[in-house]
Protein backbone atom coordinates (compact mmCIF):
# COMPACT_ATOMS: atom_id res chain seq x y z
CA UNK A 1 0.00 0.00 0.00
CA UNK A 2 1.29 3.43 -0.99
CA UNK A 3 0.87 6.47 1.25
CA UNK A 4 1.94 10.08 1.05
CA UNK A 5 4.35 10.65 3.96
CA UNK A 6 5.18 13.72 6.02
CA UNK A 7 8.11 12.99 8.36
CA UNK A 8 8.44 16.47 9.90
CA UNK A 9 11.62 18.30 10.88
CA UNK A 10 12.56 16.39 14.01
CA UNK A 11 12.62 12.98 12.32
CA UNK A 12 15.84 14.02 10.64
CA UNK A 13 17.25 15.59 13.82
CA UNK A 14 16.55 14.91 17.47
CA UNK A 15 14.10 12.13 16.58
CA UNK A 16 16.28 10.35 14.01
CA UNK A 17 15.51 7.03 15.67
CA UNK A 18 11.79 7.61 14.99
CA UNK A 19 12.48 8.32 11.30
CA UNK A 20 14.75 5.29 10.85
CA UNK A 21 12.48 2.86 12.68
CA UNK A 22 9.38 4.18 10.86
CA UNK A 23 10.97 3.49 7.49
CA UNK A 24 12.16 0.03 8.51
CA UNK A 25 8.93 -1.11 10.19
CA UNK A 26 6.69 0.22 7.40
CA UNK A 27 8.76 -1.51 4.76
CA UNK A 28 8.39 -4.79 6.66
CA UNK A 29 4.62 -4.27 6.81
CA UNK A 30 4.34 -3.51 3.08
CA UNK A 31 3.63 0.20 3.49
CA UNK A 32 5.33 2.27 0.82
CA UNK A 33 5.98 5.77 2.18
CA UNK A 34 6.13 8.43 -0.55
CA UNK A 35 7.70 11.49 1.11
CA UNK A 36 5.97 14.74 0.10
CA UNK A 37 8.42 16.36 -2.34
CA UNK A 38 9.97 19.58 -0.98
CA UNK A 39 7.85 19.62 2.20
CA UNK A 40 8.32 22.43 4.72
CA UNK A 41 7.97 22.79 8.48
CA UNK A 42 4.31 22.56 9.53
CA UNK A 43 4.77 25.63 11.73
CA UNK A 44 4.08 24.00 15.10
CA UNK A 45 4.15 25.57 17.48
CA UNK A 46 5.63 29.01 16.71
CA UNK A 47 3.51 29.51 13.57
CA UNK A 48 0.08 29.18 15.15
CA UNK A 49 1.30 30.77 18.40
CA UNK A 50 2.11 34.02 16.68
CA UNK A 51 -0.14 34.29 13.64
CA UNK A 52 -3.37 32.42 12.91
CA UNK A 53 -3.01 32.71 9.15
CA UNK A 54 0.76 32.09 9.02
CA UNK A 55 0.32 28.92 11.10
CA UNK A 56 -2.31 27.59 8.72
CA UNK A 57 -0.47 28.75 5.59
CA UNK A 58 2.70 26.84 6.52
CA UNK A 59 0.68 23.67 7.01
CA UNK A 60 -1.43 24.39 3.91
CA UNK A 61 1.57 24.34 1.56
CA UNK A 62 2.26 20.74 2.60
CA UNK A 63 -1.37 19.72 2.19
CA UNK A 64 -1.45 21.18 -1.32
CA UNK A 65 1.76 19.30 -2.20
CA UNK A 66 0.36 16.10 -0.66
CA UNK A 67 -2.86 16.37 -2.64
CA UNK A 68 -0.83 16.38 -5.85
CA UNK A 69 0.47 12.92 -4.93
CA UNK A 70 -3.08 11.55 -5.03
CA UNK A 71 -2.66 9.36 -1.95
CA UNK A 72 -3.84 9.37 1.66
CA UNK A 73 -1.39 11.16 3.95
CA UNK A 74 0.36 9.62 6.95
CA UNK A 75 2.11 11.85 9.49
CA UNK A 76 4.54 10.60 12.13
CA UNK A 77 4.80 13.66 14.38
CA UNK A 78 1.89 14.35 16.71
CA UNK A 79 2.13 18.13 16.39
CA UNK A 80 2.39 18.10 12.58
CA UNK A 81 -0.58 15.71 12.46
CA UNK A 82 -2.72 17.97 14.65
CA UNK A 83 -1.82 21.08 12.64
CA UNK A 84 -2.66 19.36 9.34
CA UNK A 85 -6.03 18.19 10.62
CA UNK A 86 -6.88 21.71 11.77
CA UNK A 87 -5.61 23.38 8.61
CA UNK A 88 -7.54 20.96 6.42
CA UNK A 89 -10.73 22.20 8.11
CA UNK A 90 -9.76 25.90 7.97
CA UNK A 91 -8.52 25.85 4.38
CA UNK A 92 -11.88 24.54 3.21
CA UNK A 93 -13.71 27.37 5.04
CA UNK A 94 -11.43 30.42 4.96
CA UNK A 95 -11.69 32.02 1.51
CA UNK A 96 -8.89 34.55 2.17
CA UNK A 97 -6.38 31.83 3.07
CA UNK A 98 -7.52 29.50 0.30
CA UNK A 99 -7.29 32.20 -2.38
CA UNK A 100 -3.86 33.41 -1.29
CA UNK A 101 -2.49 29.85 -1.11
CA UNK A 102 -3.80 29.18 -4.61
CA UNK A 103 -1.97 32.28 -5.83
CA UNK A 104 1.28 31.18 -4.20
CA UNK A 105 1.12 27.48 -5.07
CA UNK A 106 -0.67 27.63 -8.41
CA UNK A 107 -3.21 24.94 -7.43
CA UNK A 108 -6.40 24.99 -5.45
CA UNK A 109 -7.06 22.69 -2.49
CA UNK A 110 -9.92 20.24 -2.37
CA UNK A 111 -8.75 18.11 0.52
CA UNK A 112 -10.18 14.94 -0.92
CA UNK A 113 -7.85 12.59 0.96
CA UNK A 114 -7.44 11.22 4.48
CA UNK A 115 -4.90 12.57 6.96
CA UNK A 116 -3.91 10.01 9.58
CA UNK A 117 -1.31 9.65 12.27
CA UNK A 118 1.12 6.78 11.78
CA UNK A 119 -0.14 5.07 14.94
CA UNK A 120 -3.66 5.07 13.47
CA UNK A 121 -2.40 3.63 10.17
CA UNK A 122 -0.42 0.87 11.90
CA UNK A 123 -3.27 -0.11 14.25
CA UNK A 124 -6.31 0.43 12.03
CA UNK A 125 -5.17 0.22 8.40
CA UNK A 126 -2.47 -2.45 8.60
CA UNK A 127 -4.35 -3.92 11.56
CA UNK A 128 -3.28 -5.76 14.68
CA UNK A 129 -4.10 -9.20 13.27
CA UNK A 130 -1.61 -8.70 10.45
CA UNK A 131 0.97 -7.44 12.94
CA UNK A 132 0.47 -10.43 15.26
CA UNK A 133 1.06 -12.75 12.29
CA UNK A 134 4.26 -10.94 11.31
CA UNK A 135 5.82 -10.75 14.78
CA UNK A 136 8.88 -13.01 14.84
CA UNK A 137 10.50 -11.65 18.00
CA UNK A 138 7.70 -11.19 20.54
CA UNK A 139 8.82 -8.76 23.23
CA UNK A 140 8.17 -11.18 26.09
CA UNK A 141 8.79 -9.89 29.57
CA UNK A 142 8.92 -6.20 28.60
CA UNK A 143 6.60 -4.14 30.82
CA UNK A 144 5.53 -0.89 29.20
CA UNK A 145 3.32 2.09 29.95
CA UNK A 146 1.80 3.69 26.82
CA UNK A 147 2.26 7.47 26.67
CA UNK A 148 0.05 9.19 24.07
CA UNK A 149 0.68 12.79 25.12
CA UNK A 150 -1.71 15.44 23.89
CA UNK A 151 -2.60 16.13 20.33
CA UNK A 152 -2.68 12.69 18.70
CA UNK A 153 -6.01 12.10 20.40
CA UNK A 154 -7.43 15.49 21.35
CA UNK A 155 -9.60 17.28 20.62
CA UNK A 156 -11.53 14.42 19.04
CA UNK A 157 -13.44 16.63 16.58
CA UNK A 158 -10.07 17.54 15.05
CA UNK A 159 -8.08 14.30 15.34
CA UNK A 160 -10.96 11.84 14.82
CA UNK A 161 -8.78 9.19 16.41
CA UNK A 162 -9.27 7.06 19.52
CA UNK A 163 -10.57 8.25 22.90
CA UNK A 164 -9.46 11.61 24.29
CA UNK A 165 -9.03 10.60 27.93
CA UNK A 166 -8.55 6.84 27.71
CA UNK A 167 -7.02 5.97 24.32
CA UNK A 168 -6.44 2.28 23.51
CA UNK A 169 -4.62 2.04 20.16
CA UNK A 170 -1.08 1.87 21.55
CA UNK A 171 -2.20 -0.37 24.43
CA UNK A 172 -3.45 -2.90 21.89
CA UNK A 173 -0.31 -2.56 19.79
CA UNK A 174 1.85 -3.27 22.85
CA UNK A 175 -0.06 -6.51 23.42
CA UNK A 176 0.15 -7.39 19.71
CA UNK A 177 3.96 -7.20 19.73
CA UNK A 178 4.11 -9.49 22.75
CA UNK A 179 4.96 -6.98 25.48
CA UNK A 180 2.96 -6.30 28.63
CA UNK A 181 0.88 -3.10 28.75
CA UNK A 182 0.39 -1.66 32.24
CA UNK A 183 -2.41 0.68 33.17
CA UNK A 184 -1.41 4.04 34.64
CA UNK A 185 -2.78 7.51 35.12
CA UNK A 186 -0.55 9.65 32.89
CA UNK A 187 -1.39 8.34 29.40
CA UNK A 188 -2.49 11.71 28.10
CA UNK A 189 -0.68 14.14 30.41
CA UNK A 190 1.28 16.94 28.75
CA UNK A 191 5.11 16.92 28.76
CA UNK A 192 5.36 20.69 28.28
CA UNK A 193 6.17 20.38 24.56
CA UNK A 194 8.27 23.23 23.15
CA UNK A 195 8.71 24.89 26.55
CA UNK A 196 11.61 22.43 26.73
CA UNK A 197 13.91 25.05 25.22
CA UNK A 198 12.59 28.12 27.01
CA UNK A 199 11.27 26.99 30.41
CA UNK A 200 13.35 23.95 31.26
CA UNK A 201 12.16 24.18 34.88
CA UNK A 202 8.54 23.54 33.86
CA UNK A 203 9.35 20.65 31.51
CA UNK A 204 11.63 18.99 34.08
CA UNK A 205 8.83 19.07 36.61
CA UNK A 206 6.28 17.61 34.16
CA UNK A 207 8.72 14.93 32.95
CA UNK A 208 9.48 13.95 36.55
CA UNK A 209 5.80 13.50 37.36
CA UNK A 210 5.17 11.38 34.25
CA UNK A 211 8.27 9.15 34.49
CA UNK A 212 7.76 8.66 38.24
CA UNK A 213 4.16 7.58 37.57
CA UNK A 214 5.51 5.07 35.04
CA UNK A 215 7.94 3.68 37.61
CA UNK A 216 5.17 3.54 40.21
CA UNK A 217 3.05 1.49 37.79
CA UNK A 218 5.92 -1.01 37.52
CA UNK A 219 7.05 -0.17 33.99
CA UNK A 220 10.55 -0.89 32.69
CA UNK A 221 10.10 1.58 29.84
CA UNK A 222 7.70 4.06 28.25
CA UNK A 223 6.35 3.78 24.69
CA UNK A 224 5.40 6.98 22.81
CA UNK A 225 4.19 8.21 19.42
CA UNK A 226 5.44 11.82 19.45
CA UNK A 227 8.96 13.29 18.99
CA UNK A 228 8.55 15.97 21.66
CA UNK A 229 7.12 13.54 24.21
CA UNK A 230 10.03 11.18 23.65
CA UNK A 231 12.64 13.94 23.77
CA UNK A 232 11.27 15.54 26.91
CA UNK A 233 10.85 12.32 28.88
CA UNK A 234 14.18 10.93 27.67
CA UNK A 235 16.25 14.08 28.19
CA UNK A 236 14.62 16.08 30.95
CA UNK A 237 14.24 13.52 33.73
CA UNK A 238 17.79 13.26 35.03
CA UNK A 239 20.01 10.29 35.72
CA UNK A 240 17.87 7.29 36.67
CA UNK A 241 15.05 7.67 34.14
CA UNK A 242 13.24 4.99 32.15
CA UNK A 243 14.09 4.22 28.53
CA UNK A 244 11.54 5.96 26.27
CA UNK A 245 10.80 4.22 22.97
CA UNK A 246 8.96 5.27 19.84
CA UNK A 247 6.31 2.65 19.08
CA UNK A 248 7.97 2.08 15.70
CA UNK A 249 11.24 1.08 17.38
CA UNK A 250 9.61 -1.70 19.38
CA UNK A 251 7.38 -2.68 16.47
CA UNK A 252 10.47 -2.99 14.27
CA UNK A 253 12.26 -5.07 16.88
CA UNK A 254 9.23 -7.38 17.22
CA UNK A 255 9.08 -7.74 13.42
CA UNK A 256 12.61 -9.14 13.59
CA UNK A 257 14.57 -6.09 12.43
CA UNK A 258 17.96 -5.36 13.96
CA UNK A 259 17.26 -2.08 15.72
CA UNK A 260 20.80 -1.11 16.72
CA UNK A 261 21.02 1.80 14.27
CA UNK A 262 18.18 3.55 16.05
CA UNK A 263 18.30 2.09 19.57
CA UNK A 264 21.78 3.42 20.28
CA UNK A 265 20.65 7.04 19.80
CA UNK A 266 18.75 7.35 23.05
CA UNK A 267 19.96 9.52 25.92
CA UNK A 268 18.67 6.96 28.47
CA UNK A 269 20.28 3.83 27.02
CA UNK A 270 17.64 1.12 26.41
CA UNK A 271 20.11 -1.58 25.29
CA UNK A 272 20.88 -3.03 28.76
CA UNK A 273 17.15 -3.56 29.36
CA UNK A 274 16.52 -5.12 25.94
CA UNK A 275 19.61 -7.34 26.20
CA UNK A 276 18.70 -8.51 29.70
CA UNK A 277 15.37 -9.74 28.32
CA UNK A 278 17.16 -11.31 25.32
CA UNK A 279 15.17 -9.19 22.85
CA UNK A 280 18.06 -7.93 20.68
CA UNK A 281 17.92 -10.74 18.16
CA UNK A 282 16.85 -9.10 14.92
CA UNK A 283 18.67 -9.56 11.61
Amino acid at each position, binding site marked *: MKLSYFPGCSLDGTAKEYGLSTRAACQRLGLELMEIPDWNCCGASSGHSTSYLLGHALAARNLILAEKQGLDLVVSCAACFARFKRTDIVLKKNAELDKKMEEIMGTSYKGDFKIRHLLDVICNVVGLDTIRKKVSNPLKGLRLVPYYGCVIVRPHEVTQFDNEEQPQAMDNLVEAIGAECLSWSDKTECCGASLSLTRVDIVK*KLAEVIVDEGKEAGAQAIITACPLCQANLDMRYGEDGLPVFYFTELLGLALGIDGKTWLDRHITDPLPLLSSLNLMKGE
Partner: protein
Amino acid sequence: MKVITITKTGEAEAVDPGFAELVQQKSGKELRQCYHCLKCSAGCPISFAMDWTPNQIIRMVQLGLKERVLSSSTIWLCASCETCFTRCPNEVDLPAIMDTLKEIAIRNGIKSQQAVIQIFHRVFLNCIREYGRLHELSLLASLKVLTLNLFEDMGLGMKMFNKGKINLLPTRIENIHELDAIFRAFGESKRSKI
Protein backbone atom coordinates in the same frame (compact mmCIF):
# COMPACT_ATOMS: atom_id res chain seq x y z
CA MET B 1 -5.45 31.42 43.46
CA LYS B 2 -4.96 35.16 43.01
CA VAL B 3 -8.09 37.31 43.04
CA ILE B 4 -8.87 39.50 40.03
CA THR B 5 -9.33 43.07 41.24
CA ILE B 6 -10.83 45.49 38.78
CA THR B 7 -9.16 48.58 40.18
CA LYS B 8 -5.88 48.96 41.95
CA THR B 9 -5.78 51.33 44.91
CA GLY B 10 -5.87 54.89 43.73
CA GLU B 11 -5.73 54.17 40.01
CA ALA B 12 -8.39 52.88 37.70
CA GLU B 13 -7.22 50.30 35.14
CA ALA B 14 -8.27 50.94 31.58
CA VAL B 15 -11.21 48.76 30.64
CA ASP B 16 -11.92 48.12 26.97
CA PRO B 17 -15.55 47.03 26.68
CA GLY B 18 -15.01 45.92 23.07
CA PHE B 19 -12.08 43.61 23.85
CA ALA B 20 -14.09 40.39 24.26
CA GLU B 21 -15.82 41.05 20.95
CA LEU B 22 -12.47 41.67 19.23
CA VAL B 23 -10.95 38.44 20.60
CA GLN B 24 -14.04 36.49 19.54
CA GLN B 25 -13.94 37.95 16.09
CA LYS B 26 -10.21 37.38 15.57
CA SER B 27 -10.23 33.83 16.96
CA GLY B 28 -13.61 32.87 15.55
CA LYS B 29 -14.29 31.34 18.98
CA GLU B 30 -17.11 32.12 21.39
CA LEU B 31 -15.94 32.88 24.93
CA ARG B 32 -18.97 34.45 26.56
CA GLN B 33 -20.48 31.08 27.51
CA CYS B 34 -17.65 30.45 29.97
CA TYR B 35 -19.31 30.23 33.41
CA HIS B 36 -16.03 29.60 35.23
CA CYS B 37 -16.52 26.02 36.34
CA LEU B 38 -12.66 25.89 36.56
CA LYS B 39 -12.33 22.54 34.79
CA CYS B 40 -9.75 24.15 32.47
CA SER B 41 -7.70 25.53 35.33
CA ALA B 42 -7.91 22.31 37.35
CA GLY B 43 -6.74 20.18 34.43
CA CYS B 44 -4.11 22.55 33.00
CA PRO B 45 -0.69 20.88 33.41
CA ILE B 46 1.06 24.24 33.47
CA SER B 47 -1.28 26.33 35.61
CA PHE B 48 1.16 25.95 38.54
CA ALA B 49 3.60 28.20 36.67
CA MET B 50 1.07 30.73 35.35
CA ASP B 51 0.39 34.19 36.79
CA TRP B 52 -3.35 33.82 36.02
CA THR B 53 -5.20 30.55 35.61
CA PRO B 54 -6.73 29.83 32.17
CA ASN B 55 -10.29 30.69 33.25
CA GLN B 56 -9.05 33.92 34.83
CA ILE B 57 -7.66 34.95 31.45
CA ILE B 58 -11.10 34.29 29.93
CA ARG B 59 -12.72 36.26 32.76
CA MET B 60 -10.39 39.22 32.24
CA VAL B 61 -11.10 39.16 28.51
CA GLN B 62 -14.83 39.20 29.35
CA LEU B 63 -14.22 42.17 31.65
CA GLY B 64 -12.14 44.03 29.05
CA LEU B 65 -8.92 44.08 31.11
CA LYS B 66 -6.90 44.14 27.93
CA GLU B 67 -3.48 45.24 29.18
CA ARG B 68 -3.37 42.72 32.00
CA VAL B 69 -4.30 39.88 29.65
CA LEU B 70 -1.89 40.84 26.90
CA SER B 71 1.09 41.31 29.25
CA SER B 72 0.41 38.11 31.22
CA SER B 73 2.77 35.13 31.33
CA THR B 74 -0.13 32.71 31.00
CA ILE B 75 -0.77 33.32 27.30
CA TRP B 76 2.88 32.44 26.53
CA LEU B 77 3.09 29.44 28.86
CA CYS B 78 0.05 27.69 27.36
CA ALA B 79 1.48 24.63 25.58
CA SER B 80 -1.62 24.08 23.41
CA CYS B 81 -2.07 20.64 24.98
CA GLU B 82 -5.86 20.87 24.43
CA THR B 83 -6.76 19.40 27.84
CA CYS B 84 -8.91 22.44 28.68
CA PHE B 85 -10.82 22.49 25.39
CA THR B 86 -11.41 18.74 25.57
CA ARG B 87 -12.99 19.03 29.01
CA CYS B 88 -14.83 22.36 28.68
CA PRO B 89 -18.59 21.84 29.10
CA ASN B 90 -19.26 24.90 26.94
CA GLU B 91 -16.71 24.14 24.22
CA VAL B 92 -14.69 27.29 24.79
CA ASP B 93 -11.59 26.80 22.64
CA LEU B 94 -9.02 28.18 25.08
CA PRO B 95 -5.88 27.17 23.13
CA ALA B 96 -7.16 29.01 20.05
CA ILE B 97 -8.03 32.04 22.19
CA MET B 98 -4.56 31.97 23.81
CA ASP B 99 -3.05 31.95 20.29
CA THR B 100 -5.16 34.97 19.31
CA LEU B 101 -4.08 36.83 22.46
CA LYS B 102 -0.42 36.12 21.69
CA GLU B 103 -0.91 37.35 18.15
CA ILE B 104 -2.53 40.59 19.36
CA ALA B 105 0.28 41.08 21.90
CA ILE B 106 2.98 40.58 19.25
CA ARG B 107 1.37 42.80 16.66
CA ASN B 108 1.14 45.57 19.24
CA GLY B 109 4.61 45.13 20.67
CA ILE B 110 3.37 44.21 24.16
CA LYS B 111 6.01 42.60 26.37
CA SER B 112 5.59 40.06 29.17
CA GLN B 113 7.90 38.35 31.64
CA GLN B 114 8.14 35.46 29.18
CA ALA B 115 10.39 37.38 26.75
CA VAL B 116 12.46 34.22 26.13
CA ILE B 117 9.41 32.43 24.74
CA GLN B 118 8.65 35.38 22.47
CA ILE B 119 12.27 35.33 21.24
CA PHE B 120 12.03 31.56 20.72
CA HIS B 121 9.02 31.94 18.42
CA ARG B 122 10.74 34.69 16.42
CA VAL B 123 13.97 32.73 16.03
CA PHE B 124 12.04 29.55 15.11
CA LEU B 125 10.09 31.34 12.38
CA ASN B 126 13.21 33.10 11.06
CA CYS B 127 14.76 29.66 10.65
CA ILE B 128 11.70 28.40 8.74
CA ARG B 129 11.73 31.47 6.53
CA GLU B 130 15.44 30.96 5.79
CA TYR B 131 15.50 27.20 5.18
CA GLY B 132 11.87 26.01 4.95
CA ARG B 133 12.54 23.46 7.68
CA LEU B 134 13.69 23.64 11.25
CA HIS B 135 17.43 23.31 11.73
CA GLU B 136 17.72 22.61 15.43
CA LEU B 137 21.35 23.71 15.82
CA SER B 138 20.72 27.12 14.16
CA LEU B 139 17.66 27.59 16.35
CA LEU B 140 19.57 26.76 19.53
CA ALA B 141 22.57 28.92 18.62
CA SER B 142 20.41 31.99 17.89
CA LEU B 143 18.30 31.41 20.99
CA LYS B 144 21.38 31.14 23.22
CA VAL B 145 22.98 34.28 21.82
CA LEU B 146 19.80 36.35 21.99
CA THR B 147 18.90 35.26 25.50
CA LEU B 148 22.51 35.39 26.75
CA ASN B 149 22.08 31.92 28.14
CA LEU B 150 25.09 30.25 26.62
CA PHE B 151 25.85 27.37 28.94
CA GLU B 152 22.54 25.82 29.96
CA ASP B 153 22.19 22.37 28.40
CA MET B 154 25.76 22.29 27.07
CA GLY B 155 26.27 18.80 28.52
CA LEU B 156 23.01 17.54 27.07
CA GLY B 157 23.90 19.13 23.72
CA MET B 158 27.19 17.21 23.61
CA LYS B 159 25.41 13.95 24.44
CA MET B 160 22.91 14.58 21.65
CA PHE B 161 25.73 15.34 19.23
CA ASN B 162 27.48 12.10 20.16
CA LYS B 163 24.24 10.17 19.57
CA GLY B 164 23.98 11.60 16.04
CA LYS B 165 20.87 13.63 16.88
CA ILE B 166 22.28 16.97 15.72
CA ASN B 167 22.83 17.91 12.10
CA LEU B 168 25.64 20.44 11.73
CA LEU B 169 24.42 21.92 8.47
CA PRO B 170 20.89 22.98 7.56
CA THR B 171 19.21 21.88 4.34
CA ARG B 172 17.15 24.38 2.39
CA ILE B 173 14.02 23.34 0.54
CA GLU B 174 14.01 23.89 -3.20
CA ASN B 175 11.07 26.27 -3.56
CA ILE B 176 12.00 28.57 -0.71
CA HIS B 177 10.41 31.48 -2.62
CA GLU B 178 6.99 29.97 -1.80
CA LEU B 179 7.81 30.23 1.91
CA ASP B 180 8.92 33.81 1.38
CA ALA B 181 5.57 34.56 -0.28
CA ILE B 182 3.74 32.93 2.66
CA PHE B 183 5.68 35.03 5.20
CA ARG B 184 5.11 38.20 3.18
CA ALA B 185 1.39 37.53 3.10
CA PHE B 186 0.84 36.34 6.67
CA GLY B 187 3.98 36.98 8.76
CA GLU B 188 4.67 39.18 11.75
CA SER B 189 5.62 42.18 9.61
CA LYS B 190 1.93 42.55 8.73
CA ARG B 191 0.96 44.58 11.77
CA SER B 192 -2.56 45.39 12.85
CA LYS B 193 -3.55 47.66 15.71
CA ILE B 194 -5.92 46.48 18.42
